[in-house]
């Protein structure tokens, strides 16, 4: 009898302790296995750093001290696995999700979060479709392809030359990006002198390049992947075309440098969503904190994952509730200085101040240009 009383008392203590410090679960999803597992872990660490730093500060929500807990899941960059783990997080009762890493996994998973009414913020998926589905609680902390296309177009017209020719590979990515580039060129005061098309199997671009040559462009924009960008650069050289050449993130890789051989030079540019770490407002400090905590260097998107987790926590603080239905309004009107810049979303959920970096080829590698 005595033992029971003690047990009950202990139980009571346990309950009151839990009431004193409520645990709020936040989910994170990214590929932790497969060929981009290093990027997935990088994102997870970024989110983890935010959670632990806020825990150290001792946050109170609804008058109670709370402790945030990050639940990390692996989607292996596979859309099917992505939806499975999304459901698992929903069942585990997370109040918000940072993720996923890829557009291909985030788009199908966003439906599951939407049905459960849980906000999701991706730090790295750039496909514009994600925020065009009409879901109320989907956000991203990185610039999308629309913003990237606008930057390519504007940069081309204003910095590289007025007459711009655009080639795309007719994939969803290439076509979508090229349309935005077209608008950006016009907005930047340039002129689109040619729009040509190829497909994502082709290796011969001589015919369309010859046609473009006749329009005498200052810049050629290629909206497609690196595997074709390389041969295209070679063929430009073969045709004696001296225009500058710029491509989006699909071609902003180390692979294209190998494939283009001696045809790649300082006239070659590319863009990528986001800023290089040392150009972010809070980049330097973040780099040190990250290194101290995980003993690893930041890969790419960790600061965006940090800001995504911070946005969720800041919104909970502001709404004084961890209930997704209650803090969603606060999340929508987020406006704070994060590591990557000001975190504020437009009515679709895209980051307002989404930045895009232009790179130029120099000494055998891509070099970020100051914006």
């Amino acid at each position, binding site marked *: 009898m005595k033992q029971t009383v003690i047990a009950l008392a202990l139980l009571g203590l346990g309950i009151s302790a839990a009431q004193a410090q409520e645990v709020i679960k936040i989910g994170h999803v990214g590929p932790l296995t497969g060929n981009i597992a290093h990027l997935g872990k990088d994102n997870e660490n970024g989110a983890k750093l935010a959670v632990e730093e806020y825990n150290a500060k001792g946050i109170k929500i609804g008058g109670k001290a709370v402790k945030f807990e990050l639940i990390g899941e692996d989607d292996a960059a596979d859309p099917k696995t992505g939806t499975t783990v999304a459901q698992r997080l929903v069942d585990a009762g997370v109040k918000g999700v940072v993720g996923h890493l890829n557009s291909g996994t985030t788009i199908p998973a966003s439906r599951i979060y939407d049905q459960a009414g849980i906000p999701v913020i991706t730090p790295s998926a750039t496909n514009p479709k994600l925020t065009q589905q009409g879901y109320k609680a989907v956000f991203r902390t990185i610039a999308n392809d629309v913003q990237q296309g606008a930057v390519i177009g504007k940069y081309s017209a204003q910095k590289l030359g007025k007459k711009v020719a655009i080639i795309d590979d007719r994939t969803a990515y290439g076509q979508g990006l090229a349309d935005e580039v077209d608008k950006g060129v016009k907005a930047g005061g340039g002129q689109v002198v040619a729009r040509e098309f190829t497909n994502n199997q082709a290796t011969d671009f001589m*015919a369309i390049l010859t046609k473009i040559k006749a329009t005498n462009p200052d810049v050629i924009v290629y909206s497609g992947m690196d595997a074709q960008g390389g*041969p295209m650069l070679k063929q430009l050289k073969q045709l004696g075309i001296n225009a500058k050449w710029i491509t989006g993130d699909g071609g902003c890789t180390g692979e294209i440098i190998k494939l283009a051989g001696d045809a790649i030079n300082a006239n070659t540019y590319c863009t990528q969503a986001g800023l290089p770490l040392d150009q972010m407002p809070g980049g330097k400090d973040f780099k040190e904190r990250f290194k101290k905590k995980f003993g690893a260097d930041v890969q790419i998107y960790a600061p965006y994952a940090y800001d995504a987790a911070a946005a969720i926590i800041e919104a909970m603080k502001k709404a004084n509730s961890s209930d997704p239905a209650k803090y969603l309004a606060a999340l929508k009107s987020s406006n704070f200085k994060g590591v990557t810049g000001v975190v504020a979303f437009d009515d679709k959920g895209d980051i307002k101040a989404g930045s895009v970096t232009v790179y130029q080829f120099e000494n055998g590698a891509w070099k970020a240009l100051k914006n």
Partner: protein
Amino acid sequence: MQTLLQQIVNGLVVGSVYAVVALGYTMVYGILGLINFAHGEVLMVGALVALSAITFFQSVLPDLHPIAYFVMGLLVAMPVCMAVGYTIERTAYRRLRNAPRLAPLITAIGVSFLLQTLAMIIWGRNYHSFPQLIQTAPIEIVAGVFMTPVQMTTVGVSAAMMIGLVILVTRTNMGRAMRATAENHRVASLMGVDTNRIIALTFIIGSALAAVAGVMIASNYGVAHYSMGFLPGLKAFTAAVLGGIGNLAGAMVGGIVLGLVEAIGAGYIETWTGGWLNSSYQDIFAFLILGIVLIFRPTGLLGERVADRA
């Protein structure tokens, strides 16, 4: 005018490669009535084998002239492809020689998948940078019209191979045996022609041509990949049909015509249709021409002989 001339040069380079690959399709069709869909993959195997061979020779025998590596690559790729071609014929097609026509056709598609997957396992999914051993610096042939040495080599080698093949088929005993087998293999075998050997030889010669075409494509564009055989294979098959499948001269004419139509189509379709169609329709333009030719000449441009077979 410069632009038109440049487009004609572009078309000739692409067309001459199509023509060489089309010869492989047409030879096999002429003799067996079989469309060997795996032919494009043999081209891919040729390019990737040459890539491995060149990389190997560059590491064990440094300091040779670049052309020497190129020739060595070809000399390794050709026998390997010949062996691949022979193996395909011996294992996949010979047993089906008297089967209904659909069976070998589907087998050909299967062999094509098999070769692609094997190449993916051996060489991986990545695009490989193919060493450009022949000069790629452009030479101005007429004012404003450029051609690179590697393109000139492509056209030259293709022409040489076509002439060589025509001599082989029309002037030698083996060629006579091939023509006899094509006409009627039962009668040919009654006349003392070893038809199995002739058919195997046809595959071997066609595969050697494909190997050369593969190496030329890879050195022209500087890229090699396990899926690179699909598009040239499809285009060459189209060229063979356009020229009249089963007819050697037809394959050559069909290849050159298809290359020119593509280049000119991509270059001018937008101007001609007042912007209504653009270069994303370049393939449609090529197939439209094919359709029109086949409506008025169902056997292709030069393909009279096939009428009784088709």
